[in-house]
């Protein structure tokens, strides 16, 4: 199917995608908000990395920075690198950047309705990318659009290719968006809360579809979400974000079995379970921080049950707590032991 096989295969001496110490600020009328404060993570071919966080954590902004869709005022990238196959997207020439974004790295969003243009048929929208970037003819692009719609399991693709976005249900629209993203056969798919607005049965279908497509097309995925269930179901590795920093980095099994950061621990304990009826939910006390006045030292310290004096003063470094696991916490060992016990 793909004639772009040069994009596959191992990357010489590095990761497929690597974000290094990214820093992003937002300048608003009321002050400067430090939305991303030194975020680093990486993605290897074929794997699924989940970026887990709540609103204000910066998880979406990181993805937007990778895709280059941040509004540059008021946002400013003040530091760091985004390396795709070893080359920094932020310092590339514009044409090279465009060759990567949208083609090798694609993104799907939460709200398909606003991501699709309501006045054009969906087939036209899918085909447009192909015509534009691949220089395909109208007929070829249309044929490929139908193929893509069939690939994402939209029934009666041949006739539905002429329908408009509002004529599809939520789940179907999401499939259309996925088809558009996959049109260029990207190496990486960034999915920003792809199922949050969908019913649970539709969510299961979409996540299933994404899993199948990943395997078929040998695609790596960054899944941005706040849903602990979805993450447990599909992720290989997880980066947990809080106040613009990564607080924990682990493979999925280790993270759920024994978290090494108080925030992760708090999250896991505060979620009600489908398979058990518990008593009172454990909560993380307090509120998420104001990004214009991030607490000194560790941003989580005002809410942390393990907080000590040092937490108020020093930003915790990434401590290695296991094979491929880090935790940005001064008390990481203690938390980890507590989780295991």
């Amino acid at each position, binding site marked *: 199917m793909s004639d772009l096989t040069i994009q596959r295969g191992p990357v010489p001496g590095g990761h497929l995608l690597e974000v290094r110490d990214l820093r992003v600020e*937002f300048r*608003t*009328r*009321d002050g400067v*908000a430090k*939305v991303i404060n030194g975020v680093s993570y990486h993605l290897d071919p074929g794997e699924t990395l989940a970026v887990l966080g709540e*609103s*204000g*954590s*910066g*998880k*979406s*902004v990181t993805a*937007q920075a990778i895709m280059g869709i*941040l*509004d540059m005022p*008021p*946002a400013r990238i003040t530091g760091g690198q985004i390396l795709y196959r070893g080359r920094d997207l932020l310092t590339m020439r514009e044409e090279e950047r465009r060759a990567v974004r949208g083609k090798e790295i694609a993104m799907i969003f*939460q709200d398909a309705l606003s991501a699709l243009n309501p006045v054009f048929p969906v087939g036209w929208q899918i085909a447009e990318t192909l015509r534009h970037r691949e220089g395909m003819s109208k007929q070829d692009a249309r044929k490929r659009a139908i193929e893509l719609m069939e690939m994402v399991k939209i029934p009666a693709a041949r006739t539905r290719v002429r329908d408009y976005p509002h004529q599809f249900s939520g789940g179907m629209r999401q499939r259309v968006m996925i088809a558009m993203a996959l049109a260029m056969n990207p190496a990486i798919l960034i999915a920003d*809360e792809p199922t949050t607005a969908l019913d649970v049965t539709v969510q299961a279908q979409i996540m299933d579809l994404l899993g199948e497509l990943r395997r078929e097309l040998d695609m790596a995925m960054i899944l941005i979400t706040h849903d602990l269930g979805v993450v447990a179901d599909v992720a290989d590795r997880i980066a947990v974000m809080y106040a613009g920093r990564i607080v924990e980095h682990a493979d999925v099994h280790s993270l759920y079995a024994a978290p090494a950061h108080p925030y992760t621990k708090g999250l896991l304990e505060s979620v009600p379970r489908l398979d058990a009826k518990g008593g009172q939910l454990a909560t993380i006390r307090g*509120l*998420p*921080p*104001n*990004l214009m006045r991030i607490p000194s030292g560790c941003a989580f310290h005002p809410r942390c049950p393990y907080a000590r004096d040092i937490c108020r003063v020093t930003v915790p470094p990434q401590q290695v707590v296991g094979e491929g696991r880090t935790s940005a916490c001064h008390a990481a060992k203690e938390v980890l032991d507590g989780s295991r016990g």
Partner: protein
Amino acid sequence: MSELQSVAAAEVPETVAADRPRSLAADAWRDLRRNPIFWIALGLVAVLVTMAAAPSLFTSIDPRACDLDRSNLPPSAEHWFGTNVQGCDVYARTIYGARASIAVGIFSTLLAGMLALLFGMLGGFFGGWIDAVLSRVLDIVLGIPLLLAAIVFGSSYQPGENMGIWPVVIILGVLGWTTAARVVRSSVLAAKQQDYVQAARMLGAGNLRIMFRHILPNALAPMIVVLTIALGTFIATEATLSFLGAGLREPTLSWGIDISAATTRFQDAPWPLLFPAGFLAVTVLAFIMLGDAVREAFDPRLR
């Protein structure tokens, strides 16, 4: 943090803002304060309103003390703006003329505002046939060309005694409320859908309480914005009407009348026309600038 919200989509952080209570009006005021155009416009308006209220502060010359011997004199130390064809001091007439124009502007805006509120609130809130009827009335009035109708009504009455500015005020108010009414109606329609209105209903609030407590405050802001700009246009329209002889009449002092009277001899004596016209332009501009600044300050809050 509205920019943050619009750009970072779902990334709105949960935060607690300032320590002191800050209403939306206070936020708007804070923005207004920083806008230089607001201050310039406000300054101009303040001067003009003072001029209208207390013209004697600006000149001691009687605008009606006219001497035909001194007709159409150019500006001099004695007559700062010169004299008009009847020998009246143009400066004094211009200062005193402010009262008519600004009074007409303010009162016709108030009248238009009241009518707009009435029609917009009733139609938007009750919907159904009430809305249908009121909307048709609105459409009919909207369809009447303002200037044309004003000229017809303005020319048709022959006041025995001087009724002053009121006929013009009524004409402008009655013909000019439509745009504001539409704005009010759409604000009411939008506010009706809001969850907090449903919440009030569920608490048992009656229609009156909902209209005045929940809907009206939200409909007022956009209406004020529209009306502040409309004020400027009303002043300009009044001047036009008076120019055409369908507005204010002698012996009322008005810029429009002065401009009209000075047109024929414009080539020889431009001053009696230029000064009132200049003041007129500045007044209209000042009100429109004020309205613009107010609109900018309120706009993001309307979200």
